[in-house]
């Protein structure tokens, strides 16, 4: 397989690094949550990619399957469905925290908050 044939994995790596960069570098809490979302999406893509079976169709049984019919592996899809739910919960909680932080500090910039904490 050529390098380009593995493009799913390249996109996985790209998303992972972009997300991680935003989480580590950005001072704005909402931007950090966006980064975290991108970071998690990368892993969803990894799992969805690994369930592909060459020549396989969707793992749905319709009547009697033909002999030799291949199906994609449904387990990673189920797993990642759970992980997506977890991801939504994390995002919701993170954004809720960002709202509360803004109520208390009047800002969601790391540098402002650090200054306010330092002054008090």
């Amino acid at each position, binding site marked *: 397989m050529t390098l380009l044939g593995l493009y799913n994995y390249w996109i996985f790596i790209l998303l992972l690094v972009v997300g991680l960069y935003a*989480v580590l570098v950005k001072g704005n809490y909402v931007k950090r949550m966006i980064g975290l979302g991108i970071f998690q999406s990368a*892993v969803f893509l990894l799992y969805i990619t690994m369930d592909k079976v060459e020549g396989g169709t969707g793992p749905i049984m319709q009547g009697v399957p033909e002999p030799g019919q291949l199906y994609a592996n449904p387990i990673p899809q189920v797993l990642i469905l*759970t992980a997506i739910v*977890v991801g939504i*919960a*994390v995002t919701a909680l*993170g954004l809720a*925290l*960002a709202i509360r932080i803004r109520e208390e500090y009047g800002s969601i910039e790391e540098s402002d908050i650090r200054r306010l904490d330092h002054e008090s």
Partner: protein
Amino acid sequence: MTLTEQFPVLVVVLPLFVAPLLALLASRGNLPWLVATVTSALTFAMAIALAAQVMQTGVIYYELGNWPVPFGIGLTIGPLSAMMLMIISGASTVALVAGRESMNAEVGTAHQALLYSCWLLAMTGLLGITVTGDAFNIFVFMEISSLASYVMVANGPKRQALTASFKYLVTGTLGATFYLIGVGYLYMMTGTLNIADMAVRLADVSDTLPVMIAGGFVILGVALKAALFPMHAWMPNAYQHAPTPVAIFFAACATKVALFVMLRFQYELLLPNLGPQAAFLSSWLIPLCVGGFLVGSAVAMFERDLKRMLGYSSVAQLGYIVLGISLANSAGVTAAMIHFFNHALIKAALFVAVAGMVLRFGSSNIEQLAGVGKRMPWTTLGFVLAGVSLIGVPLTAGFISKWYLIQAVLELGGLGILLTILILVSSLMAVVYIWKVVEVAYFKEPIDGQSMVGVREAPMPLLVVLWVLVLANIWFGIDPSIPITLAEQEAAGFFGGAR
């Protein structure tokens, strides 16, 4: 089918089912607290029963819904899992009983029912991680406990609790996601998620690149969750700003559960199958442990906030545990497991004492605690004795841990002697930071203008819990047979191939 046969699943399901009920009890006085405490105590009783059973008859297997493993999810309770169950449910019970008044003082009554609901969810997650035999299940339970923990930390009395919780959330999610990537690669190569099954199938693909990468991702993810140096920044912050009872609970068990996952992956999957590469990974962890206990202890010496100081002390103590894990010999892993148990006793006792002081003084700043030794003699004495155990003086639980760890380290030869010296240096720094509190508590006059009139001894339940923990520290320092038996059984399983 008897009830005791269902304990392995009940121990997780009971708090899970009570949690949503608690959320419905909003603003009903002390009822939510009572329900949470009773649930926690019942769980503790089940954990003790399970531990007794494991010590007598060996590992317990349980198939959820009677689906045969590896198609269904199996629960496996080995000696270490049984010990962890006791630590988690015990710490939760202790923190709830001792922390009732602190909770009333620090968290508004309107939110308490929801907070206790989160408490039980966090407990469910932590307990679930220790009993499950499924790698993806661990991720789900990890996130259940983490999400509940973020909420609990955010409920702290000051606004800094919100930012502490946010940082914890970001770090925790990064850790869980790295773990998920690791599990994904392992699944890709083995086609199974059951850890025991994975261990067998990994043998065929042990020298492939994805498996090695998986090992790295899993260890990195778990290290983030466990606040291993240098990924520890979130932890002292979270401990300082969380409501004090929550800090008692987390300090005793939360990060240890992440280390439990690390230990299981290292000894059940990576070391038996990857041999040299896993050993390389372990040796890469040793400098981090040394950095952890040296930096942790050193920063603790200069911290002005008592809770934060204990948080950094935990960074150091976790360094000892990971050192035991990364030695990759039987003595090392035994020492790590014994320290799981003893450190839980020590830190729970210290944080309970701190909860008493914070309750009466309204501050955890060490300078402002001047004269606490005269006003609250029993609380302060309890703190000092637990501190003595932390330092590792003979006849305390802390000494047993250090003794086993140093013996394990000395098996390394020349490097071992160097590591022993560094451990002793770190212990001396522990003497310094515990002494700093003693000095302020007994020998400093209260700061001018500060009214000491209202300050009296901590409430009775807190004192009882504190002294039970302190006496347990001494008891397990003189007769440490329970943690040692469990740890040695588990280590024999890892190295004897008996499991």
